[in-house]
C-alpha cells in the first residue's frame, strides 16, 4: 500500500536536523538533545522488552501442559519474577514518558529543549546502570520472590539475589524521578507565547500528571526497597514478625508506590490515544477540559486506593471497605475518558491508518481491563478472584492491551517526525490487527481460568484447565509476531522508507509545524500559539 500523505508537504528533510548533526559515539552518548535521549531510551527499553518477553514466552510454553515439563518449579518462580520486574520497571514505567515524552514534550510546548538537559542524560545513565544490576541478578541465578518482593520471603527466607534486584530498581527509580521533575518544570516554565494551559495537547496533560506521580510516588519505593534490603542484610527490621514487626507494613509501603505506578503506565497511553484519535477523526477531542481534569483526578485518586491489593492479606475489613469505595471512585474519571474518546468519533471523518487502529484497540481493551478492575475492587468478589488468573488477565488488559498498544500507536504516529521516514502502512495495519487478535487470544482465556480458580504464579494446574492455557499460549505466539513485525519494518523504514514531510497526517500540534526530523533546536523561530488545541473543525474548507 502506498504511504498516503495528507496536508502540506514542504520541508522534506534535506537540511540539517538533530539526526544529521554528528554521528559518532560522543555525539550520542554525551548528547544533551532531548530527542536523541528519547532514542537512547527506545533502544534500551526495546532490548529489555525482548528479555522480559522471552521470559513470558518460556512461561507460556511451560503452561502448555498441566505439569511443569519445560522448567523446574524454582526456575518458573524466577521466570515470572524476572518478567514482572523487567516489564514493570524497565519497560512500562519508562516506555511512553522516556521515549515519546522526552522527544515530544519540548516540541509540543514550543521549547528548544527540556528545562534540565544534563539531568535528562543522567536519568538515562541511571536507567542503564539500574538495568545492568538487574540483569546481573538474572545471570547470577535469578530472583524468585515475584516482582512484588513481599516480606518475610524477600527479607528472610529467599536465598536468591533479592538485594541486587532491589538495588537495580532503586537506581532506576532515580531515573524516573529526574524525568518527571524535568517534565513538570518544562511544562510550567517553558511554554511558547500563547500556549496557555488549556491550549496544551492532552498528551502534555498526561505527561504532567504522570510526572507528578513519578516525582511523588517513586521516593516511597526507594525507601521501601532500602528498608527491605537492610532488613535482609542485617537480619533485623520492622517487617519481621519474629521481633513484632509487621509484614503487612511492607505491603502498605510497597503498594503506596506501586498502585500509582500503574497510572504511570496507563496515563501516558491515554494521552497518546487522544492525539491519535483526534487526528484521524479530524475532530477536536470531545470535552477537552473534562479530559484534562480527568487525567489529574486519576493521578490524585490513584494515591488513595493501594489497599485494594491487600484485601485478603490480613488487612482489616474496615480498611478494606474504605479502599474498596475509593477504588470505585477512581474508575469514574477513567470512564469519562472512554466516553469522551467515543464521542470524539461521533460524526467524525474517520480514517484507519495504523496509529488509529492501535488507538481504537487501546480504547476497547482499556474498557475491558477497566471494567474487570471493578470486579476486583469489589471486596466480596475479590476474595474469590484475588491471586487468580483473573487478576493477571485484568492487569495485562491494561498494561499490554491498553498501554503497549498505545505505545505502538504513538511510535507509528510520530515515526515520521522522529525519523523523517514513513513506515510501510500495509505491514503496519497488518501488525496492529495481528497484535489485537493475538492479545485477546492470549489474555481473554485467562479471565475464564481465574474465574474457574486457577491461581497465578503456579506452574502446574488441574487437567481441566489445559484447553484455556493452550489457547492462551497459542495467542502469545501470535503476539510475538505482532511485536517483531514492527521492529523489522520500522528499522527497514529508517533507510528505505519514503521521506516524510513536516506534517504527513495533517495533524494539529506544534510538533507538526517543524520539519521531519526536527532541527536540533526544534524550531527555527519560537512559535506563537493563536489557536485552541485540536483546532480541526475550524478549518474553512472542511468536509
Amino acid at each position, binding site marked *: 500500500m502506498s504511504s498516503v500523505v495528507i496536508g502540506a508537504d514542504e520541508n522534506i528533510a534535506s537540511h540539517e536536523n538533530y539526526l544529521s548533526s554528528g554521528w559518532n559515539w560522543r555525539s550520542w552518548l554525551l548528547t544533551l538533545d532531548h530527542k536523541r535521549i528519547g532514542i537512547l531510551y527506545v533502544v534500551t527499553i526495546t532490548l529489555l522488552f525482548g528479555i522480559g518477553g522471552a521470559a513470558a514466552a518460556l512461561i507460556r510454553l511451560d503452561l502448555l501442559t498441566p505439569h511443569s515439563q519445560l522448567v523446574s518449579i524454582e526456575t518458573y518462580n524466577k521466570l515470572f519474577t524476572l518478567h514482572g520486574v523487567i516489564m514493570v520497571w524497565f519497560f512500562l514505567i519508562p516506555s511512553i514518558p522516556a521515549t515519546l515524552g522526552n522527544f515530544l514534550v519540548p516540541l509540543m510546548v514550543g521549547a528548544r529543549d527540556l528545562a534540565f538537559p544534563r539531568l535528562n542524560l543522567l536519568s538515562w545513565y541511571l536507567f542503564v546502570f539500574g538495568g545492568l544490576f538487574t540483569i546481573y541478578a538474572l545471570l547470577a541465578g535469578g530472583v524468585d520472590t515475584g516482582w512484588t518482593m513481599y516480606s518475610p520471603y524477600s527479607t528472610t527466607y529467599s536465598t536468591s539475589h533479592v538485594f541486587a534486584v532491589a538495588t537495580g530498581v532503586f537506581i532506576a527509580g532515580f531515573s524516573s524521578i529526574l524525568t518527571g521533575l524535568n517534565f513538570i518544570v518544562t511544562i*510550567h*516554565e517553558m511554554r511558547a507565547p500563547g500556549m496557555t494551559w488549556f491550549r496544551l495537547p492532552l498528551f502534555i496533560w498526561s505527561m504532567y500528571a504522570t510526572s507528578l506521580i513519578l516525582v*511523588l510516588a517513586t521516593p*516511597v519505593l526507594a525507601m521501601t526497597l532500602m528498608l527491605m534490603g537492610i532488613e535482609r542484610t542485617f537480619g533485623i527490621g520492622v517487617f519481621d514478625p519474629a521481633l513484632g514487626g*509487621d509484614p*503487612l*507494613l511492607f505491603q*502498605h*509501603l510497597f503498594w*503506596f508506590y506501586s498502585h500509582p505506578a500503574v497510572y504511570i503506565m496507563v496515563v501516558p497511553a491515554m494521552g497518546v490515544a487522544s492525539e491519535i484519535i483526534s487526528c484521524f477523526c479530524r475532530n477536536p477531542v470531545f470535552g477537552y477540559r473534562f479530559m484534562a481534569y480527568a487525567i489529574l483526578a486519576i493521578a490524585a485518586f490513584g*494515591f*488513595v486506593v*493501594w*489497599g485494594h491489593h491487600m484485601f485478603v492479606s*490480613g*488487612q*482489616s*475489613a*474496615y*480498611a478494606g471497605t*474504605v*479502599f474498596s469505595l475509593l477504588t470505585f471512585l477512581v474508575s469514574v474519571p477513567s470512564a469519562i475518558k472512554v466516553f469522551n474518546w467515543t464521542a470524539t468519533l461521533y460524526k467524525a471523518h474517520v480514517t484507519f491508518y495504523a496509529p488509529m487502529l492501535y488507538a481504537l484497540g487501546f480504547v476497547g481493551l482499556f474498557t475491558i481491563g477497566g471494567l474487570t478492575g471493578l470486579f476486583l475492587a469489589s471486596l466480596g468478589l475479590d476474595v474469590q478472584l484475588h491471586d487468580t488468573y483473573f487478576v493477571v488477565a485484568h492487569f495485562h488488559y491494561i498494561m499490554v492491551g491498553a498501554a503497549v498498544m498505545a505505545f505502538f500507536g504513538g511510535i507509528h504516529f510520530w515515526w515520521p517526525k522522529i525519523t523523517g521516514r514513513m513506515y510501510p502502512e500495509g505491514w503496519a495495519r497488518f501488525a496492529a490487527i495481528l497484535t489485537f487478535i493475538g492479545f485477546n487470544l492470549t489474555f481473554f482465556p485467562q479471565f475464564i481460568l481465574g474465574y474457574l480458580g486457577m491461581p497465578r504464579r503456579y506452574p502446574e494446574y488441574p487437567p481441566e484447565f489445559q484447553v484455556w492455557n493452550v489457547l492462551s499460549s497459542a495467542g502469545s505466539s501470535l503476539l510475538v509476531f505482532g511485536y517483531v513485525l514492527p521492529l523489522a519494518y520500522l528499522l527497514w523504514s529508517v533507510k528505505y522508507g519514503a521521506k516524510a514531510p513536516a506534517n504527513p497526517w495533517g495533524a494539529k500540534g506544534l510538533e507538526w509545524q517543524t520539519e521531519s526530523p526536527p532541527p536540533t533546536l526544534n524550531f527555527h523561530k519560537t512559535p506563537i500559539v493563536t489557536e485552541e488545541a485540536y483546532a480541526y473543525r475550524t478549518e474553512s474548507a472542511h468536509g
Partner: protein
Amino acid sequence: MRNAAETRPIVYILVWLALMILLALTVGSAYLPLGSAHTPVNLAISVTQASLVMLFSMHLSSAHPLMRVIAIIGFFGIAIMITLSLFDVLTR
C-alpha cells in the same frame, strides 16, 4: 514567576530565636506530666517550627503559590500514607 521579594536579615534572626524558644518548650514539656498529650504537643511544636523555617527561611511566604502547593503536597502524601495504614492497623 518573578524573583522573590527580599527577606530582611532581622527576620532570619527572629525565626532563629523563635525556633530556640520552641526547642526549649518541646524539651521542657517532655518533663511535664501530660500523659498522652505529649505526642500532640511535640508534633504541634514541630509543625510550628517547620512552618517558620519554610515560610521565612525558605521564602515560601513570598514565593509563587505553586511552591507552597508543592510543599504541602509532600506532607499531604505522608499524611495519607500514615492515616490509611494506621487505620488498618488500629481496626484489625
